């Protein structure tokens, strides 16, 4: 069993297809909806955590893709304006996932996106507001 997070973008016409139902029934994937923005008749997006067997999740994602749903692993959607960072460390105070840490060697910020659990605490914690979770 693994857990993976995806941002799903639905095309306007797919609104009424029970895609998530298929995922549960055919691929035995448990779905945890973390965030949803669905506008009837327009594009919609979902932030999902998929839990299941690795090969089933892969099959499920393939299935969604075949139905014109764009699936992106979440790490692509966290924006950090690294070039403006002053390495103050404020964000590391709140990042309990250990994604944001200070290098003990040069005291610069290190961001390991694979560890991020999207708790969003770093967004208000950075006094330069360099983090954005881009959820479209």
């Amino acid at each position: 069993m693994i857990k993976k997070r995806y941002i799903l973008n639905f095309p306007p016409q797919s609104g009424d297809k029970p895609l998530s139902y298929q995922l549960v029934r055919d691929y035995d994937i448990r779905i945890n909806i973390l965030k949803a923005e669905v506008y009837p008749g327009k594009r919609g997006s979902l932030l999902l955590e998929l839990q299941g067997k690795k090969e089933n999740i892969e099959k499920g994602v393939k299935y969604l893709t075949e139905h014109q749903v764009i699936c992106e692993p979440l790490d692509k959607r966290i924006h950090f304006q690294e070039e403006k960072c002053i390495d103050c460390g404020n964000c590391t105070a709140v990042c309990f996932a250990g994604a944001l840490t200070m290098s003990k060697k040069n005291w610069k910020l290190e961001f390991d996106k694979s560890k991020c659990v999207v708790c969003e605490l770093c967004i208000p914690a950075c006094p330069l507001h360099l983090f954005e979770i881009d959820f479209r």
Partner: protein
Amino acid sequence: MPKIKTYEEINQKLKQGKAVVLTAEEVAQMAQSASPAEIAEKVDVVTTATFGAMCSSGAIINFGHTSPPIRMEKIRLNGVPCYEGLAAVDSYIGATACDPENPAYGGAHVIQDLLEGKDVVLEAWGKGTDCYPRKHVRTRINIDSINEFTLFNPRNAYQNYNVAVNTTKKMIHTYMGTLLPNLRNATYSTSGELSPLLNDPDLRTIGLGTRIFLGGTQGFVVWNGTQFHTTRPKNEYGVPVTNAATIAVIGNLKEMSPEYLQAVYYEKYGVSMFIGIGIPIPILDEDMARRVSINNRQIETSVLDYGTVGMPKLEQVNYEQLQSGFIKVKGKKVRTAPVSSLAKARKIAGELKEWLEKGQFELSKPVQIFPQNTSLNSLKETEVEHD
């Protein structure tokens, strides 16, 4: 008799490119194997630095006169209120000033916008008099259009600072960052052994007129800072174990660099400004050598509970522990995080070292030493009759 170097001798060596300059971290390293006497013999100047949020900062601006002239009695820069009680077109914009409607953009941001060469909207009102008939002006200004643009910070470079924790059940938002409930994090803010006033704890060489690195150019220490407190408890190495002395500094903003000044906004707290300060410490004698040799293990500070009224002290820890990533508070292992930039402080200490080595920076002897035996009053509230 131990050897005593004078400012003149050190400056002479700096000019000839013969002086030995180390950063405070380098000298702390050297002190592991060298005695203060040896360090005093070998080293001439030690550079210290800090880059952290310093709320008591701001800029003096002279806008120039309009024709016909106006006496600016209410002034806004990009909507941020500035001080209006200084003659006709002088003003002071405090880093933390803001329009309550727009709390995330404040005086620090105005200073930064000007510094970066951006246009800023000046709006001012006056009542109109014979000398100053004009009643209103609204125009754009920039760093080249204004006359003086002087950074003047009444309180900077705190000598040591508390560690902040929160024992309550609610998350709190402070100038020490976001403090999670139930002692789940601890934040600290000085650069430890690199911090300026910790390397000269009795302020023998830092006084009125000391030339310093300020915001990327050369500035000066012009007074003791506000809330100057020299009688805090000290540890066995002679450093105060909580916030103590401070300095007031001044410098020409037109020569400064946005790399060493940064406006910030702390969520639910307000605006502040990161200021880059570097102070060179001349190794006049063995005593100064001993002072600058101090290391992170020897510098201690107090852990205060920011969630509880009166901010009780819970623990005393040292900077080696703080920088290790964890401290113990009330028996609990607590994760630490810095809230000032050690990386940038190192860069400043390195840059100042380079200026000194190239003979581009002359040390100045304080023309006056700061007061001793000071402490603080709190504001006592007394009954005031209505009239």
